[in-house]
């Protein structure tokens, strides 16, 4: 009765359903492109910088005449929708963006379509930060966490590189260093790497067993010992804007987020960025096509455009991302390539979420 009731009150359901996803791998690339143009539209589920990505997708729209719609949504919201749509014959999602480290916790073959139809390009990246997504996903957005700092207060050579040096900085400049623990991954990447180095726990083991979490205790004590000297910020954006305002001197940030804000004139251009030697998480985001995508041809063509060397160079220039195509030019990145060797792999779930809950409860909540 309830189902009938809801259907009778559903006044406006705008989405029109196209034909079921044709099997692309058997078609030649030109046929795929012609079918994509027939489909004429695609929906790309990506959860961050949606305004700027819409502007970036304009060049694709002009080139192929296929309109790209990017809905608003959080990462969790999109994931929830992905699982909810799985049961339907044709879902709403054509291109699905996902954080690279989440590919370990998703059953790729059951969810996504193999991207074999795309023309061969060995420079693409499907194995990133120790996770190989096979042919189900390609990385399109390399990002690296690090520390953004205000050069007017700290010069290049006395930048803290290890937990001890950070503690010393906190001591000498109280409340000048801040990091977030929610609304964005930059702060978590920072405190997780400090926990790793201080406690020496094995971060490749994903188990969230009691002992594994208990091993982190030295790191937890480290943070609580210096609680008064550092500040907790509200989100990625909050950390960076507070450096730009001059309230903070240093704060963890995403390389691409900082570059994007600087290019758009939101924050001061002179803010610098570096990866401390103790290492901070790097990774990226990938794209793939759900099995029941309504416009799979258009999706394939879009992905091909997205990870082409030309687009990756534009992304590097405009968003400061680490390019995910070997042939792309990465000269506009904020940091020299040599420093990228300090990039570490972020720990896997469920260990990571258990660690985040433990840090929130035993450090943030104690303040």
């Amino acid at each position, binding site marked *: 009765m309830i189902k009938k009731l809801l259907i009778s009150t559903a006044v406006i359901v705008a989405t029109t359903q196209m034909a079921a996803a044709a099997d692309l791998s058997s078609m030649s690339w030109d046929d795929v492109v012609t079918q994509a143009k027939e489909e004429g539209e695609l929906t790309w589920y990506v959860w961050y910088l949606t305004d700027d990505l819409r502007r970036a997708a304009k060049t694709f729209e002009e080139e192929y005449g296929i309109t790209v719609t990017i809905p608003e949504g959080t990462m969790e919201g999109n994931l929830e929708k992905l699982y909810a749509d799985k049961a339907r014959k044709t879902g709403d999602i054509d291109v699905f963006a996902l954080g690279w480290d989440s590919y370990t916790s998703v059953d790729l073959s059951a969810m996504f379509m193999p991207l074999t139809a795309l023309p061969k390009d060995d420079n693409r990246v499907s194995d990133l930060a120790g996770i190989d997504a096979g042919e189900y996903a390609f990385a399109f957005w390399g990002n690296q966490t690090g520390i953004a700092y205000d050069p007017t207060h700290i010069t290049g050579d006395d930048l803290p590189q290890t937990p001890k040096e950070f503690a010393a900085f906190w001591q000498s400049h109280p409340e000048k260093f801040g990091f977030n623990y929610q609304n964005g991954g930059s702060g978590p990447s920072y405190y997780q790497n400090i926990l790793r180095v201080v406690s020496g726990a094995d971060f490749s083991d994903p188990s969230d067993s009691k002992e594994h979490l208990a091993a982190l205790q030295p790191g937890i004590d480290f943070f609580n010992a210096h609680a008064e000297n550092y500040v907790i910020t509200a989100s990625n954006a909050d950390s960076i804007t507070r450096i730009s305002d001059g309230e903070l001197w240093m704060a963890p940030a995403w390389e691409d987020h900082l570059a994007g804000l600087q290019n758009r004139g939101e924050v001061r251009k002179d803010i610098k960025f570096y990866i401390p030697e103790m290492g901070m998480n790097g990774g990226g985001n990938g794209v793939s096509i759900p099995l029941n995508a309504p416009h799979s041809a258009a999706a394939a063509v879009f992905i091909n455009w997205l990870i082409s060397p030309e687009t990756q160079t534009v992304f590097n220039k405009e968003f400061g991302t680490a390019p995910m195509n070997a042939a792309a030019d990465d000269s506009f990145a904020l940091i020299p390539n040599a420093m990228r060797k300090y990039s570490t792999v972020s720990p896997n779930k469920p260990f990571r979420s258990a660690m985040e809950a433990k840090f929130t*409860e035993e450090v943030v909540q104690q303040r």
Partner: protein
Amino acid sequence: MTARQWITVTLLLMPGLGLIVWLIGTVVYIAFAQSFGLYNINGESALTTAYWADLLGNNIYLRSVRYSTYIGVMSAIFSVVLAYPLAIWLRKPFTGSMTIGSILKAPLLVHGLVAAFLFVNVISYHGILNQFMQWIGIWDGPHRLQNDNNAIAVLILQTWKNMPFALLLLTGALQGISDDVLDAARDLGAGSWARFRKIIAPLTVSGMQAAIVIIFIGAVSDFAFQVIAGPINRQSLAQLMVGYKGRGDWNSAAVVGATMIIVALFGSAILAGLSKIVMRGRLK
């Protein structure tokens, strides 16, 4: 009332009241059911108090309950305490009282989220408040006002948003008191304070209780103000619930939801009772 009339009345009530009771009833039922492990979305349902036990021991949850109740009570009190004298002052119309009334009720027109943004904008590191304080020399440098720890920002926002609502209800209640009754009290020797305590307060208790209850429930279940302007190290019940739901942990979200309903009901009952005692001198 014959049986036929009963049938027509129930049929008439079905689409309106019926749906309300169904939706709210189902929602509350699911909240409590899921908090005990039943009616699960994915996976099997089994009656268990594990979720409650787990959360009742969890520091974040306990702080969240205390924090949301603190916000709820303070917002209700501030809003009503501010609205009361204004309502009494505006009871008798005088030149300009209409404009003052509409100015004071203006915040009702502004959406909560917008209010939060405007407020955060004003108290931001380089906002106008910091600049003004520096300009007149009280502060030597800009102060960090945003996301302050004891949630003064959230309380200011709640009061900014709820005071007009309390004013609306109290003005309505005050209009129920005829001038003659107040003149009679004065004629019998009651000064202005005695008139307030003996006549105005008791007769506006029900209006005030309604205001306190609705504002308290609204403030306890606040999400937007907390997320935008609230302190970092504490979460409101709604924020915690949405957080658990986001991580797919529906059962913990249900426990927090159930707690919110309990706090809302018992809290408002206690506040209503207290306000009656304060205003009327006895609980009758």
